[in-house]
């Protein structure tokens, strides 16, 4: 009996862009922008006003549309094109494996079978989300589909429990094998986040489902921060949470390696599995991509057997762009609100007009060293660039400030090391006119490591030495072996050395408010990127203009 | 002369109607003191405010009040306003809240002069001082607020205000109750002086029978909204015709012979 399996066989095909603005296979090398001169990132915090503004034409681009009713409404709007992509988002319920009864794998499997993820996705997201069974989101290049799936089947859940010796009390509460006392009441910690009104609802569904197989569960809604503090103290039974992950699968190490089970660590559920640990270590310190890929897939297969979480769904990213723009870029893995769109878009009917881009939150500080706010980075990512970019289609590495690189494992004192050699692009200048050289890369990495800047410290802590044999070569030698060093180093933004030298206190640094030392009209917030910072009016907008000296324009 | 003929006043509310004055006829001549005596709630105040037509909305009036050929019960509001204070000014109980608490006494006197007589501001202020002086209030009092004055001083201020426009009639509603005896005498003296000097008519409404007997030229006794007795004080003392008058007189220790 293979119930419902045929549904998953119809695979989600991705790359779908609705209607008129359909986009052919995207060729990164064709992008030569930006074409627009003015970019206003307008702060609309309320989803209702975002929707209204988009429909009214006050906004051109709106990303991250979460409410299904909005999606349906925009889909029927003739002036707006929607794009959908899979997201690096993963919503799950975690068990506290440190205590009874969740250390029982059968119970976890039964619980997984009781939770109707598919129905939750239907009812709460009207299908605009993807039920998942794995520990990486399906968009990940390292996603392994061939894992043990705990299909929704409450009857089977009861069956496997009964087979393992569980019984039910007269009230229908589960009694562990060999015992005579029913399970004590347990709580599911659930955030009641403003931004995600659906989370509490999902928790209630989960609680109902688990109650139906005899787990005496109730939901305890908490604000996000008290919930995190309970989790950090390991004071919980069950919890729901969502992570927004990166394209690299080494998050698996952070979430499931036994060394991460410390107060405040990411192994919240307290998983200790020596065999899995070995695989995760292999993943974390993989010398090359092939090893990494193998380890990542193996870890996912093992995890679905261990079931430390019940993965529930992964969000689709839905973005809307008004139809009077052409050149909008969206792929199966990147929704339309991306840098490539900004580099490529221009008014459909010619002419020149500013783009109004929705910023759903206030940028917190525009301090690239201090902030970890995603909204700051929506702005900063247009100003600062890394050595390597991510291909919007394949999610592979794309030459950016570095035209070429090499990853080697070399022997040295204390064992093998990873050595990264980057060849930098020539002719790139900072927005204030000063040439970009290997000195900037070196200064950036040294600065991040020396000041232990939290956002980057994990990326740069293993750097052993940096060599710059010439203006366009950087050799970074790491203290150990890991393929991920390439992404950690290559993906970090590069800051201008001549500005970093003036930074006295990185925490309170406000580059957007300092006058640039060489060009009076500019601020210290200068990078190599396609847009130049012009003005930030708190509560209203961030104004950026095209970087006329952007290297991609020059290559035209 | 103000001639009241067969005046009835009835207060109406949604639930009931209360007759307060029933068929009163009375004449108030100039240059004389006319007193109306009666117990509290007997309709005296209603009579006073009826003459000035300051009764609450919804109050019914019938009968007539004739002032020099003008029918007050039917006159336009505009003509009434003209009548008030210039022809007949009101002197209320001084201890009562008759002065606006947030305005100085001087301002309140001058305001009447400015607004009613169109006097320029400076002149009005000077005249106000004179008026206050007439009632023995020194100039310093013009700048004071009512709460800084004693009861008698307030009463005198009210009288100053009342005579400001040189009205033909003063209508005094219990001008002396709640004042001590000495102050009472002063206030009454002031009032009577005004009447005699300027030839005004004074309608004095009071529950104080001896006072009425001592100063009035004509007097009337009011009981349950009706005038039960009218005449000179001498006549009423000597020959009270109504039982209520006799009760009143005996209550105040005035002995009277039987009317019959």
């Amino acid at each position: 009996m293979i119930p419902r399996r045929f549904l998953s066989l119809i695979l989600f095909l991705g790359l779908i862009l609705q209607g008129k603005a359909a986009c052919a296979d995207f060729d990164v090398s064709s992008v030569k922008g930006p074409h627009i001169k003015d970019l206003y990132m307008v702060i609309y915090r309320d989803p209702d006003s975002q929707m209204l503004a988009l429909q009214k034409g006050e906004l051109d681009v709106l990303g991250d549309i979460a409410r299904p009713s909005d999606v349906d409404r925009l889909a029927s709007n003739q002036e707006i094109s929607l794009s959908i992509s899979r997201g690096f988002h993963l919503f799950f319920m975690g068990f506290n494996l440190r205590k009874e009864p969740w250390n029982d794998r059968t119970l976890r499997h039964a619980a997984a079978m009781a939770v109707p993820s598919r129905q939750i996705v239907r009812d709460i997201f009207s299908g605009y989300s993807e039920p998942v069974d794995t520990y990486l989101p399906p968009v990940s290049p390292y996603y392994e589909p061939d894992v043990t799936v705990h299909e929704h089947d409450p009857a089977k859940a009861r069956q496997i429990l009964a087979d393992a010796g569980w019984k039910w009390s007269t009230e229908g509460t589960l009694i562990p094998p060999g015992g005579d006392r029913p399970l004590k009441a347990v709580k599911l910690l659930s955030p009641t986040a403003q931004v995600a009104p659906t989370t509490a609802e999902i928790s209630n569904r989960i609680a109902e489902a688990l109650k139906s197989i005899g787990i005496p569960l109730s939901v305890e809604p908490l604000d996000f921060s008290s919930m995190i503090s309970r989790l950090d103290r390991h004071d919980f039974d069950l919890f729901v949470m969502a992570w927004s992950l990166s394209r690299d699968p080494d998050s698996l190490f952070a979430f499931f390696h036994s060394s991460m089970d410390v107060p405040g660590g990411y192994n919240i559920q307290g998983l200790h599995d020596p065999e899995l640990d070995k695989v995760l270590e292999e993943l974390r310190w993989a010398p090359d991509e092939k090893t990494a890929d193998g380890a990542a897939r193996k870890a996912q297969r093992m995890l679905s057997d261990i079931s430390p979480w019940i993965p529930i769904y992964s969000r689709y990213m839905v973005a809307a762009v008004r139809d009077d723009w052409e050149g909008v870029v969206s792929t199966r893995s990147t929704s339309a609100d991306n840098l490539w769109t900004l580099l490529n878009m221009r008014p459909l009917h010619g002419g020149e007009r500013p783009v109004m881009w929705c910023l759903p939150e206030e940028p917190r500080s525009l301090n690239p060293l201090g902030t970890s706010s995603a909204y700051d980075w929506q702005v900063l990512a247009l100003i600062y660039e890394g050595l390597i970019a991510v291909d919007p289609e394949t999610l592979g590495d794309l030459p950016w400030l570095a035209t070429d690189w090499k990853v080697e494992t070399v022997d040295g004192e204390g064992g093998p090391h990873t050595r990264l050699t980057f060849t930098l692009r020539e002719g790139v200048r900072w927005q204030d006119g000063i040439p970009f050289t290997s000195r900037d890369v070196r200064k950036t990495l040294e600065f991040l490591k020396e000041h232990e800047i939290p956002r980057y410290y994990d990326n740069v802590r293993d750097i052993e030495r940096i060599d710059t044999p010439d203006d366009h070569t950087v050799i970074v030698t790491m203290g150990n072996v890991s393929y991920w060093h390439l992404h950690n180093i290559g993906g970090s933004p590069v800051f201008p050395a001549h500005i970093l030298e003036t930074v006295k206190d990185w925490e309170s640094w406000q580059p957007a408010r300092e006058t640039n030392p060489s060009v009076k009209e500019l601020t210290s917030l200068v990078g190599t990127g396609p847009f130049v910072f012009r003005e930030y009016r708190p509560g209203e907008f961030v104004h950026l203009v095209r970087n006329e000296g952007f290297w991609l324009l020059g290559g035209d | 002369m103000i001639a009241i003929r067969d005046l009835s006043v009835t207060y109406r509310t949604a639930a009931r109607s209360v007759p307060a004055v029933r068929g009163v006829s009375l004449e108030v001549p100039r240059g004389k003191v006319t007193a109306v005596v009666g117990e509290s709630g007997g309709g005296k105040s209603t009579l006073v405010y009826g003459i000035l037509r300051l009764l609450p909305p919804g109050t019914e009036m019938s009968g007539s009040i004739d002032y020099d050929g003008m029918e007050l019960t039917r006159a336009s509001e505009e003509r009434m306003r003209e009548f008030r204070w210039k022809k007949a000014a009101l002197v209320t109980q001084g201890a009562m809240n008759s002065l606006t608490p947030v305005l100085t006494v001087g301002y309140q006197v001058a305001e009447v002069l400015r607004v009613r007589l169109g006097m320029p501001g400076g002149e009005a202020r000077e005249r106000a001082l004179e008026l206050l002086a007439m009632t023995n209030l020194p100039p310093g009092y013009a700048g004071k607020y009512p709460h800084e004055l004693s009861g008698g001083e307030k009463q005198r201020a009210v009288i100053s205000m009342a005579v400001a426009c040189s009205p033909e009639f003063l209508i005094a509603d219990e001008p002396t109750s709640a004042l001590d005896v000495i102050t009472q005498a002063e206030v009454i003296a002031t009032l009577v002086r005004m009447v005699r000097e300027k030839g005004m008519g004074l309608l004095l409404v009071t529950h104080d029978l001896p006072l009425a007997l001592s100063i009035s030229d004509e007097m009337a006794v009011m009981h349950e909204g009706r005038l039960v007795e009218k005449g000179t004080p001498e006549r009423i003392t000597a020959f009270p015709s109504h039982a209520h008058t006799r009760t009143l007189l005996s209550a105040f220790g005035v002995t009277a012979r039987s009317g019959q």
Partner: protein
Amino acid sequence: MRKPPRWSFMAFLLILAVAAAGPPMLPGDPGRTMAKPFAPPAWSGGDAPPPFSGAITPASREITIDWKWDAPENLTLKGQLAFDEDSPVRLVWTTAEGGSFTLASFRGGSLWEVDLDARDMAFKTGLGIPPFASATSLLFPGRGVQTLSLEGPAPSGGSLDLALPGGRWGLLGTDQRGRDVLSLFIVGVRVSLLVGISATLLASLLGLSIGLTSGYLGGAADALIMRAVDVLLSIPVLPILMVFVGIWGKGLWQLVMILGLFSWMGTARTVRSLALSLRESCYVENLRSLGAGPWYILYRHLLPEAMPVVLAAVSLGVPGAILAEAGLSFLGLSDPRVISWGRMLHEAHGFGAFTAGAWWLIIPPGLGISLICLVFLDMGRAIEEMADPRLKGGGGR
């Protein structure tokens, strides 16, 4: 001429009756999904279809649907079918215009479980339509007879249920989860009343006792208490409530406590001045000289005098508490498990009912809150007017 009782008293009794008798009379759990999300009320639905259901069983292998409306919002197929014969089976949809779609195909020879939902991305992809297109508009291209049939060997057992949710529902339509708004509305009146009345009762009790104490004691104690009242009155309450909700949690009783603790000041002030004037009155003075104890005076004389004031304060305070609850709920600071009118508005806003124009989801709780507030305000005013007839609207000095 006797006036009929004031309208607000009648309305209050009606609301009480609904709150007491309404929820138990509801058919089933108000949390159930009844129709499509944001389904308009049945009487305003216009061309929206009613719910439809049918089944494929061994006896009947075809469902015919005579469709007279626009495409339904959704389509679900759920159930199990058992086949003895091992040969291909297909579920085929034929539209009125002759189009044909294979919804599922599998091989017989076992028990199959089917769980299809037209909203699933996989379902849309299977039909070859983009993710934002509606699968049902493909399956219901026009009005007429659409057919779902099972092709292949006859099933030996089980049944497959087809359900089309209604496009309109009930008296007040459905919310974002397809729940009956009328049921939620009826359940919600309880919470709004409960929060409003109990918070205000608490506040009034506090205000009464503090006011009486302050007025009766007088002197330094009085000055101190009144200063405290001044201070509390000049601090904006909502921010404090927000902080307290953060500390104590978002439960219903916590909310009642918090609201009660921060709204007693007005009553205390009024009661205190009343007590002060009574204390000075000859009447109480006499009682005291007759040897009456403070408790006797408090209980027999001050309390009855203060009662109308307190009653009016309760009546006038309830709207404040109800509105405060609604405001906190709107900011997301209330217990998500408790259905109150404020919560309904919060969810309506959170799920985009305002921009979607789902007025049936917004107007009932919005008007409900204001109606209940109006009722209490009017009752309060009536009580106030009894105590001070001068305030009566129109007539009478």
